[in-house]
């Protein structure tokens, strides 16, 4: 088992290495560079050369990649171009704010998805299933920016219950942030819940149809005991991986949602840095978001391995 986990970690690191190459090359071939953007119309002659020298753009690209990668491994992303401050200082509060948003959505979303998924599976094709499944299709297919806009229109503008747009500085305390995050959290949790509930549903249905559950029914095991002891443990295991992939996929949706609500998180930084051609920040964001994706998947893989007794013995066969 440890061999498998080790292999997964190694694969994750290779993936991150390729991501860093892709983003470095990608940002490198963007038309215009930091200096032409920064100096605008004065970008010629001595000023341009001085700027190149100052930002170290006069050395070959592969050398810059190596020194950049070396610094990133030590946790130093360099300097942001527009703000002229260390990227770590730019990122810190943004990461914290996005983490608050994402974890609130996950804390609400996962239990909701479990409950709804189990209900729809046990009452398959009955009224509760039809209602919940239909709602789920709506909430998972409608784009984040539409559900977020509708939430603002209904809850913030028509009912005037909550603030529609987050107007807070980047570094606020958690309690100042709280009333502002309710609507964004609902917007993200809705989509996440719908996706996961659907997976839990089909996973439970699959297990319910399996031989050992049929056997348990024939043996006369009480219904709810059978559900909790035989069905759920086996049904939820394969769901872990899929849930992880869904969370990772939602990173993109979080970006859009943050823009709609003007939320000071990583997502808005993505848009700002790309509009400003702030390439060092774009590179840093790509690495961070990809690391989040890779580690969520890694955690899911490890959890599946730990919880699956069949895979534990694999090391003997290897």
């Amino acid at each position, binding site marked *: 088992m440890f061999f498998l986990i080790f292999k997964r970690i190694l694969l994750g690191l290779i993936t991150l290495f390729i*991501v860093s190459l892709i983003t470095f090359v990608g940002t490198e071939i963007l038309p215009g560079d930091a200096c032409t953007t920064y100096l605008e119309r004065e970008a010629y002659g001595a000023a341009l050369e001085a700027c190149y020298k100052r930002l170290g753009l006069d050395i070959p690209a592969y050398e810059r990649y190596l020194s950049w990668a070396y610094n990133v491994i030590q946790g130093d992303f360099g300097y942001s171009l527009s703000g002229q401050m260390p990227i770590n200082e730019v990122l810190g509060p943004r990461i914290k704010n996005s983490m608050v948003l994402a974890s609130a959505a996950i804390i609400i979303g996962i239990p909701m998805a479990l409950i709804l998924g189990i209900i729809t599976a046990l009452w398959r094709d009955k009224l509760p299933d039809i209602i919940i499944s239909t709602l789920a299709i709506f909430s998972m297919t409608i*784009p984040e920016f*539409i559900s977020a806009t509708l939430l603002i*229109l209904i809850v913030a503008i028509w009912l005037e219950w909550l603030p529609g747009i987050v107007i807070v500085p980047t570094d606020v305390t958690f309690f100042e942030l709280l009333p502002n995050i309710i609507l964004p959290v609902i917007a993200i949790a809705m989509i996440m819940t719908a996706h996961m509930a659907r997976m839990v*549903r089909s996973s439970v249905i*699959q297990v319910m149809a399996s031989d050992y559950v049929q056997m348990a029914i024939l043996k006369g095991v009480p219904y709810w005991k059978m559900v909790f002891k035989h069905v759920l443990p086996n049904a939820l295991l394969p769901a872990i991986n899929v849930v992880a*992939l869904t969370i990772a996929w939602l990173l*993109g949706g979080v970006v859009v949602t943050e823009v709609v609500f003007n939320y000071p998180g990583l997502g808005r930084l993505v*848009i700002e840095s790309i509009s400003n051609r702030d390439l060092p920040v774009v590179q840093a964001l790509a690495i961070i978001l*990809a690391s989040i994706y890779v580690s969520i998947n890694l955690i899911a893989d490890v959890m599946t391995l730990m919880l699956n007794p069949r895979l534990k013995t694999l090391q003997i066969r290897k």
Partner: protein
Amino acid sequence: MENRKENPKNILSKVLEVLSTMASKPSGLIGLSILFFHITLAITSPWFVPYDYKAIDPTLMLQAPSSEYWFGTDSLGRDVFTRTLLGGRIALTVTFFGSLIALLWGGLLGIFCGLVGGKIDDIVMRIVDAFLSIPWILAMLLIVSLLGTSIEVLIPALGFFYGKGIVRVARAATHDVIAKDFIASAKARGHSNMSIIWNEILPNVRDAILVEGAMRWSWMLLGFSSLSFLGFGVSPPTPDWGLMISNARGLMSFAWWSVISPIVGLSSLIIGINLTADAFAKALGIDRSTKAPV
């Protein structure tokens, strides 16, 4: 494998059969009708829209819905009804051709990787994994700010980016098929590699790839309209739902009509494509509900 050569008549009857299976369930029927409605609308709308979509008139700013302007007017005095009717054309065109490109390169590369295996397969799959782990929004924004936002850029960019998921599916399906006995017997009969790919493998992985492509279509539409919404998609004054929503959003506290109509348009199209793709998967006997949306 029985019918070695599929003639056009066979394909047509197969298509009709799949369509009728899809329409036999209410959700599939609804999905197909919505999709059909949107496609018809997109093709025919330029001939019957009541006003010019880019005619700006400051005296008509933010008019409420009336008998003259059914869905009201927007902040530049343009007719919202006209712009909503036209708003699906670009989205449908871009995502349809984008999905075709995604299907082609994703399917071919996936089948190739599944066939050759070994080192090449490993390297390609690593690169595909790396692309998968960059959030779609960041990658699309990078591509678009690199190459611009014209349709000629958006279609291949979306096609490329959404094809990487198809690579995985096509590769997995090929892996499943390649271990089967009929491949070994075709090899023993002395068929050429091309003949084995064309006659034995392709018919067996086709369904999985097509279903994946249909799902990609709805996600691509989501991605495309998110880009438009963020201001990185098609440029104004082109009527596009994502763009219309983003323009009208700031004024929705007193002009809700200009944001509701594009919302209804885009949501119904995405739901229609999704229901259709789901029904398509079910009609071909593929269970998609346990898959993650990557």
